[in-house]
């Protein structure tokens, strides 16, 4: 079983949901990445999504755009991010690591080399924002041959046919983007999310995570009642922006603790 699948299996057995933080690797500087990953795990993260910075983050709001720009000022590359993942793995062998980013750095490296190096670095899953299922059959095949899961996005506007198509290709989990818009925007409607997750589950066998717009423990708790995982991006990145290299790790650990304890509370 893959590290992602066994993580979800253990959580399900305990009746818990996965807490998945996202941050941009190399923000505020390359040396902070691994300490931040460990701090997130200490605070209660079950899976870590490591953002690969890109010069043109079309699907991201201002918070994650700024984090990407900070990382790029340090020249952080896809290979550099893989080196961070590898270093994390020398200490932590149980927490799944998922790379999240845009297509072009992967196109540039080449699918086969990317898959091989990602596997060697202990990466478990890959989510590419601008590869919808119809454009990445070759990459999915390549990643699969190296036992790496491909995680796909689903949105409120995905038709049932598309959800089913994603269900056929997806492994690890799927990521339901609960808002129309970019990362960090707007407000989340829990009842709406519940209905959408139910619809997705009719077509998709893997766990369903929900993200975009989850910024506090109360929302995390409400969403985790209807989904298998919650993904927290902009809130984590904001803590890193404000805390910097010195205080970032302590602050993201505290945020994870806030979310974790809210999610694990029973009743209201």
């Amino acid at each position, binding site marked *: 079983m893959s590290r992602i699948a066994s993580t979800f299996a253990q959580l399900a057995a305990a009746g818990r949901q996965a807490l998945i933080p996202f941050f941009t690797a190399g923000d505020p500087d390359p040396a902070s990445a691994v300490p931040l990953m460990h701090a997130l795990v200490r605070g209660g993260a079950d899976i870590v999504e490591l953002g690969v910075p890109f010069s043109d983050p079309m699907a991201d709001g201002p918070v994650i755009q700024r984090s990407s720009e900070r990382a790029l000022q340090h020249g952080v590359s896809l290979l550099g991010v893989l080196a961070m993942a590898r270093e994390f793995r020398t200490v932590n062998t149980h927490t799944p690591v998922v790379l999240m980013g*845009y297509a072009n750095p992967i196109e540039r490296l080449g699918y086969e080399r990317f898959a091989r190096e990602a596997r060697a670095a202990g990466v478990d899953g890959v989510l590419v924002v601008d590869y919808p299922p*119809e*454009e990445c059959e070759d990459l999915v095949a390549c990643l699969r041959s190296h036992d790496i899961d491909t995680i796909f*996005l689903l949105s409120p506007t995905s038709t049932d046919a598309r959800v089913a198509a994603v269900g056929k290709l997806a492994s690890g989990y799927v990521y339901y983007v609960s808002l*129309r818009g970019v990362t960090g925007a707007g407000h989340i409607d829990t009842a709406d999310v519940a209905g959408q997750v139910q619809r997705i589950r009719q077509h998709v066998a893997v766990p369903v995570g929900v993200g975009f717009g989850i910024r506090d423990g109360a929302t995390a708790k409400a969403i985790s009642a209807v989904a298998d995982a919650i993904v927290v991006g902009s809130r984590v990145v904001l803590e890193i922006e404000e805390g910097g290299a010195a205080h970032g790790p302590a602050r993201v650990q505290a945020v994870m603790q806030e979310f974790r304890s809210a999610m694990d509370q029973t009743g209201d």
Partner: protein
Amino acid sequence: MKLYDLPDARGHFGPYGGTFVAETLIAALDNLRENYLRLKDDPAFQAELAYELAHYVGRPSPIYHARRLTEKAGGAQIYLKREDLNHTGAHKVNSTVGMAMVARHMGKKRVIAETGAGQHGVASATVAARYGMECVVYMGAEDVKRQAQNVYRMKLLGATVVPVSSGSRTLKDALNEAMRDWVTNVQDTFYIIGTVAGPHPYPMMVRDFNSVVGKECVLQMPEMVGRQPDAVLACVGGGSNAMGIFHPYIPHESVRLIGVEAGGDGINTGRHSASLSAGTPGVLHGNRTYLLQDENGQIIETHSISAGLDYPGVGPEHAWLKDTGRAEYVAVTDEEALTAFHDLCRLEGIIPALESSHALAQAMKMAAHMDPEQILLVNLSGRGDKDMATVAAHMGMTL
């Protein structure tokens, strides 16, 4: 004549093009594609479009024999397709009129656009005023400073101009920001992309609307000189004016198609915008195409004296035409373009856009090595009124 029917149903031109966007945009693009394909075959829509092009844009644009320029070049005859005479002063209006009409048929009340030099922003603000729609134009903060006149022009036309301060603060960042707006407001908003780039169906749709240029030439040239030209030349930023004049000529195999990119300070200096001449394939802004990028796949900053060519990508159909050899792509430097700019001003009484001056420069270079019986047709994509400050600054003056 060989059949050319690209893109395929999923928007691919060979390995290029496609729909590389986040899932949140797929439904909007599907919806746009379905509506566009329906309207494209709807005689009532086509009649409405023809009326607008004739009475609002001022089509057909004439073809002009530039005799004194020909004399100076000393060889092949140079003819100009006068897109500079269109309403708003460039070819951009051909597609903004078309897309605004599609937007209206789709019931959208708000249009957005990205712009570099401001020409596409002006053309979008113009049609938004014409059809009574709200218009928001995203423009890199750097470009807002450089193109104050066009910013004011857009405001006069009732548009809101939003300066974009992320990334390199230029055209590519404005495009990112417009995409972010679209994904957020997709219910009531139509995105008018300024060139033959972006995700499917944009490269096809913008090409189709600009193809009126080439279709007219295919009829006008035989009427005027009894045959088709030996070569058709156009500048290539994103590539819409070039695709517009190339596309109807693709089946005319004896006609060479030559795209002219912005060589900036020279390709070897690294300060240029010549993605086809000096770039490598990758994925940006929703499609796979040639890009100017570093070894890690980050998009790099580009340079050209003409803001309209200052873009690190290029429409995917050009990538395909390059690989297949059906079209050829060359680069012309800032200096060469400026020389051609001044030549056209002084010899023909026509002030061309700096973008179009790149195509002119290449035509003059080529003409010199050709016979007087041969014919070059240049797409004069726009007029140079917008470039007064840039040219003056280059000559050491401020206006």
